[in-house]
Structure formats: C-alpha cells, structure tokens
C-alpha cells in the first residue's frame, strides 16, 4: 500500500519527465532517424530562444502575474539589435538589445504598478496593449521591412556564432542559456529578492506585511522578464538571420504553455526554473516528434492545446 502511494506520488511529481521519456521512446521506435545527432542538436537549437522567454515568464507567473507583451519585446529588441549593427558594431548592438529588453520590461512593471494593476486580468490586458505598442514601434522603425543581418557592412560573426555555432559539439546558444539558467536558479533559490517573488505570488498581503516592497518586486520581475525576452530575441534573430517587427509571434502562448507544463502554478507562489526547462523541452520535442511522424500543423495545434489543458487540470488537482 505504502509502495503504491510512493509510486503514485513519484508519477504525479514527474509527469513531464515521464512524458518526455514516453515521447522519445515512441518516436524513436516509429522513426529511428529521431535519434540522429543532427536531430538532437536541432532540438536543442530550436528550444533555446523559447527557453529564454519561458525562463523570464516563470518569474512573472511565480510572482502571481502574466505577461503577454513578450512577443512585442522579442520583435522590438530584434529590430533594435539588427539595425544597430552597422552604426555601432556587433558588441554595442548586442548590449543595446539586452538593455532595451530590460528597459521595456521595466516600463511594463512601472506602468502596471502606477496603474495599480493588482489582478491577473488587468495585467493581462495592459501587457497585451503594451505588446501592440512594441510591435507598432517596430513596424514604424522598419516600415514593415525585414532586416537581414547579412546586409550589414560591419562584422556580425558574433551573431552567426550564437545562431549556428557550437563548442565541443554543443550549440553556443545552449551554453549561454545554461549559464543564465544557473544564475537565475541561484537568484531564485538563494537570494532574498528571488524568494520575495514567490512570497508575493503566494500572498501579496503577507508579503507586504513582512515588509517587502510589492511595487519594486513587481518592477524587478518584469525587468527580468524583459531581459530574458531580449536574450531570446537575440538568439532567435541570430538563428534565422533576420529581424522583423513580427518575430517571435506566438511566443507568449508557448512560453506560458512551457511554464505551466513545467509545473509552475498559474495562481502564483510556486514554481521552479529548472522545471520550466523540462516544459520547454517537452513542447519543443512534441513539435519535432509530430513533424517526424508526419502529423499536420492543425494536429500539432490541437496537441499543444491538449497539453496545456491537461497541465492546468493536473495543477488544479494538486492544489485541491
């Protein structure tokens, strides 16, 4: 009896991992090419940009909020970065892109706190509005044109390395992500600021009474999210070698999907950046497997929806 309970608890706590194992096994049996090194490297490259965005989104959701403006930030940062390569060089463009992402996130946080947005619905609509603003600014800057890195007259090899380079067979973008993930994990679990996010997400009143500055924490969360979106944007832009005001379309939904699938509760307060990584891996893997198994795009959308609904259902069951 006790062993059965242990097994059930183990399954309940490691559903994503089990899902990954089942998916890998089934696909590998039906389509052995799935296990080719090239395919596995592709999966890693495909997941990195989304992983960065989902990482930032994890903090937002743990904090009890949501951010639909990530797609706007991804697109605008890509446009800013690509258009700055010629005037200030690749290092300057990269740093400006990251700074722009952090500033856009900070702007989001500031607007939300100044407008007194306290519930998720308000935050949802304000960030949705901000996303439209960011995209529109990108369209104005580019005149809806696609910017191609290869058109730059100054060197852009750093972006090529981020997009398609590898070190000891591991994609450089994954190595960068691993470093950032370690920093973020340390921040979340070992610092007071990181823990204050969970406290705020779990119970804002309690966090306030404990002396935490809710507004400042909220600004910090959104700034982190902006910075992570900027990382995601630069990786994505480097990979596809183009920047547009519509780059990253759909990332907001996919990032939320990965975070929820990873086990972070939508109600806030609980979550883990490492588990988000598993969520990203599962979602990317799902898309890859379905392509290799010949499933249509419509079917893939159905599957993504089904995974999200199941994840939320399981999350609610855990909380009951």
């Amino acid at each position, binding site marked *: 009896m006790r062993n059965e309970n242990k097994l059930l608890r183990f399954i309940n706590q490691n559903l994503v991992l089990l899902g990954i194992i089942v998916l890998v096994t089934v696909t590998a049996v039906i389509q052995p090419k799935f296990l080719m090194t090239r395919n596995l490297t*592709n999966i890693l490259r*495909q997941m990195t940009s989304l992983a960065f965005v989902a990482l930032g989104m994890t903090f937002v959701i743990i904090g009890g909020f949501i951010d639909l403006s990530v797609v706007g930030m991804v697109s605008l940062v890509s446009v800013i970065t690509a258009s700055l390569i010629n005037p200030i060089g690749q290092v300057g463009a990269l740093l400006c892109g990251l700074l722009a992402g952090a500033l856009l996130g900070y702007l989001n946080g500031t607007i939300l706190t100044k407008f007194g947005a306290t519930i998720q619905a308000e935050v949802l609509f304000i960030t949705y509005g901000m996303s439209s603003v960011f*995209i529109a600014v990108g369209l104005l800057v580019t005149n809806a044109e696609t910017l*191609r890195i290869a058109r730059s007259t100054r060197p852009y090899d750093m972006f090529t390395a981020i997009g398609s380079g590898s070190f000891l067979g591991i994609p450089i973008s994954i190595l960068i992500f691993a470093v950032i993930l370690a920093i973020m994990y340390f921040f979340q679990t070992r610092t007071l600021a990181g823990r204050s996010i969970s406290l705020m997400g779990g119970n804002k009143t309690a966090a306030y009474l404990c002396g935490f500055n809710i507004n400042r924490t909220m600004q910090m969360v959104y700034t982190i999210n902006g910075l992570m979106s900027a990382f995601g944007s630069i990786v*994505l832009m480097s*990979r596809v070698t183009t920047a547009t005001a*519509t780059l990253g379309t759909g990332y907001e939904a996919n990032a939320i999907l990965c975070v929820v699938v990873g086990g972070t509760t939508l109600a806030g307060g609980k979550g883990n950046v490492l588990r988000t990584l598993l969520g990203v891996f599962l979602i990317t893997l799902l898309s890859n497997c379905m*392509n*290799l198994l010949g499933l249509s795009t419509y079917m893939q959308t159905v599957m993504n929806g089904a995974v999200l609904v199941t994840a939320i259902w399981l999350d609610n069951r855990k909380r009951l």
Partner: protein
Amino acid sequence: MKKILSLFLVLVLAMSVSSAAFAEKKEVKIAFITQSLENASQAFAWSQFQEYAPQYGFTPYLFEEGYDPQKGVAAIGTCIAEGFAAISINPTDPSAMIPSFMEAQKAGVIVGMYSSEVPEEFKQYRDFMCGTNDIICGEVAAQTLMEAFPEGVKVVEVGGQSGHDAQIKRHNGFFDTIDPAKVTVLDSKNCPRWSSDDAMNIMNDFITLYGDEIQAVYCHWDIGATGCIEALKAANLLEGVYVIGVDGCMIGYDQVIEGTQQLCIGQNFTRMTTDTLDTIQKILNKEPYDEVTFTALDVVTPANVSTFPYPKW
C-alpha cells in the same frame, strides 16, 4: 452695428459651408483594405497607393483587417457610409466579404479585388480584379522546377501559414501543375505562422527525414526561404539544392544574387497598384475596362536578376 455683424457672420458661415461642400464634391475617396500592414508586401502596396493615387485625383484611405474578416466587413460599411468612390481590397477571407460587396455595389461603390480573387461563383459581386493570383505563383513554381529538372526531381514543400488563403492557393497551384511522373514530393508541411523560424524548424525536420535526398525546396515566401536556406547551410546540404521562394522582396532578390535561392517569383505591387487606379478611373469615366488584369509575375533567377529593378520592400 449688430445687423452688419450678423450679416458678416452669415456670409462667413455660408462661404465656409459652400467651400466645404465644394471640397467634398471634389475629393474622390478610395479605400485600400488590406489583411495587415505587418505583412511587408502590403505595407509597400499601401505606400504605392499613397504615391500614385493623387496623380489620378484620388485620396487614398487605409483600412486594416488585422487578419480578422469582421474588421474588413466593418471597413466596407464605413466606406459605404462615407461615400467612397471605390474600394480595393485584399481580404483575409474573400468569401466572407461577399454580403458586404453586394451592399457596396448596391450603394454604388466600385469593388475591386487586389492581389486576390473571390471564388468563381461570386465574381459578379466584384467589379474588377487586379493582381496576381496566388494559384499562378504555385503554377509558375511547378513549371520552372520541371524545366530545371527535366529528368525528374525530389522536392519538399514548406507552406505558409496553415489555412491562409495565399498558402492554400500557392499549394494548390503547385500540386495541380506538377507532373507526378517527374516531380516526387517527399513531404509537405505548413507553418503555424508566416515565420522564418517555423520554416526553419520544418526544414530541419525534413533534413532529418530525407537528408541529401532533397533536391529542391518550394517555400511559399522568400523570408521563409531564408529559414530553409539557413537550415540547409547548417546541414552542409545547401549546395545543389534548388530553392524556390515567392514574393519578390529585397531578401528574395538578395538570395538570388548570392546564389542561395534559384528562383524568386516576384509580385510587382507598383504595377498592381497603378493597374487598380487605372481601372477605377475608367469605371468612373464610364470607359470600357478589363474586369481582370493579371499583373505579370517576375520570374527572377540568378541568370536574369540584374534585368529586374531591385525591389523597394
């Protein structure tokens, strides 16, 4: 004094009203209703309306659907209410617009299709069509591919946004034209969005499945072709693969010049716009006009790319 002042005020009022009425009479308003300006080709098309419409004495107004047919219906309603002379529309869903077209025609508004066409059974509800039909883009891609590989070829198709009008037509035009004895379609998959990232992911998966079997790639849009090219490059398979893209934007031309894309099927939006304006003017002047004006496609290859003007979008 009061009487003089009153008279003066009445005169000023009468003058302003008559000048406003005169100005309104003179202005010929035409609407460009487009799917979304996020699409670079549509943003460029709008710039062409702004550039050329004044030469015809028209004032162009823009309405954007944002890929929502309901917004297109609302835009047509506005045009009818505000007495527009003509609308030129590139709708997200042509079939959904038919009742609105009927209303517009009843109100005397000229209805023109831009770069798209309504289904055959509804053609009487639009006055004219100018542009390229996306079906023809697919046909040209298939014909050029068969000419380039007379012995036969193995191709993969990376489609545009799944379910989008252009995606469906570019796919159908291609598949209806290919000779199955000569062209083997290894695989065909559409993207969730018009995103080069999605095109690249699908291409990567095709490379995993078919590797160096792939001799040609038919991608529904040039910027998507960029994603396919990058995927082929990363797998060291680009050399010898015949990449086809549709649109004719700067990136497509650049790729043809570099030799990474062998065929770019270009749509000339300047010509399409002037054709539209010509037709509207003829209808307004009650002159004979062509109900359908197909804008010739630019079939751009590395051999002839220098003979085409470099695109502005």
